[in-house]
């Protein structure tokens, strides 16, 4: 973006058409006039909301990892599992590829996304530029694709339905925390205005 006082010059990331964008009001969106891709959505109090939702997500994330996820009862035998149990089971069977995949999608990428958001946004909000801020924020954006908590929860639902006739399943605290985490992460994502973050980073250089 090249900014002057009256407008910002910006290229569409999907078709490369140049646009002259007038200063947006809060809640206003700019779309590409040729291919329809979103160019910029300006959000009110973006930093504050994103930080609040990210902190909530961090607490829920810790709860989802510490507390029992689900308990399985069959013929009087009880088996408690945690969020990470599946990962260990894959490693024990020598299927480390799947172990790593599930570890990344359900634990590591979500964790990096939450921590990365806070690492960049909290100091920026206090008008300080954290060390390696652009690199960290770029990885946060890439975590978007690979953090698959929402898909994971659907996998849980399908597994529960498959086992429902066979055994008694008792949901644990972690499963509710995980469900809530998906909502707070979605809220943090929709509150985040990446353009505002990049501009602030540049201002504080």
């Amino acid at each position, binding site marked *: 973006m090249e900014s002057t006082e009256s407008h910002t010059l910006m290229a569409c990331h999907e078709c490369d058409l140049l646009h002259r964008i007038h200063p947006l009001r809060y809640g206003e969106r700019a779309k590409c006039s040729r291919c329809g891709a979103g160019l910029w959505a300006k959000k009110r109090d973006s930093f504050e909301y994103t930080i609040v939702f990210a902190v909530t997500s961090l607490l829920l994330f810790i709860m989802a990892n510490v507390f029992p996820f689900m308990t399985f009862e069959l013929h009087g035998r009880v088996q408690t599992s945690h969020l990470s149990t599946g990962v260990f089971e894959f490693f024990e069977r020598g299927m480390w590829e799947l172990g790593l995949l599930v570890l990344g999608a359900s634990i590591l990428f979500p964790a990096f996304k939450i921590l990365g958001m806070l690492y960049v946004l909290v100091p920026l909000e206090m008008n300080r530029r954290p060390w390696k801020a652009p690199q960290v924020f770029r990885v946060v954006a890439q975590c978007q694709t690979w953090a*698959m908590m929402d898909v994971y929860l659907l996998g849980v639902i399908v597994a529960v339905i498959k086992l429902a006739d066979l055994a008694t399943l008792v949901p644990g605290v972690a499963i509710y925390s995980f469900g809530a985490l998906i909502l707070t992460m979605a809220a943090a994502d929709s509150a985040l205005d990446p353009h505002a973050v*990049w501009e602030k980073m540049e201002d504080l250089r």
Partner: protein
Amino acid sequence: MKGLSTTAAKASLISCHACHQLSRIPAGFTKGDAICPRCEAHIHLRKPNSISRTWALLIAAYILYIPANLLPVMTVISFGKGEADTILSGVKELIHAGMLPIALLVFFASITVPVLKLLTLTYLLLSVQYKSRWRPRDRTFLYRITEVVGRWSMIDIFMISILIALVKLQAVATIEPGMGAISFAAVVILTMFAAIGFDPRLIWDKMEEH
């Protein structure tokens, strides 16, 4: 917002894929040796080797799609007897158990989405290579959906990870993941990388040529 009648590339500008900062093409610019002044990412006019990279990932995904569907994704062992499940037989089982909505969901995520994704990316690549000028806006839209929806195919893999964590009563019932699961996960990941590697701006570059 006003669309100008020219692209960034034509105006000698590079748009950073990470932070969307526009910068002038530096003198003596060759592929990918420039750095975005704002976010320090490597910047390119177009994603490097987009077409051949996407093809390579896509062909690998096509090949692995065969074992992904033929080999069992998991085996349920109860009282010493094993029953192998492929992706399709898992869906059939859900239908027999009377769970039609869930069966449809799994069918959509594990079969419809991967197949459509493979075919869509193939079509997009061919349309760019054959310099198609047909409905570029719709093709861009198709790409956008492909990029977003791909991750939902992972449902089956996550389901297996829950099942093996819960069902481990040695004598009564255990569940063993199979090679089909690894192949299937590889197909999903390869197509996700293929979608990331494809540059939708190539669709529009053909529209600029006369």
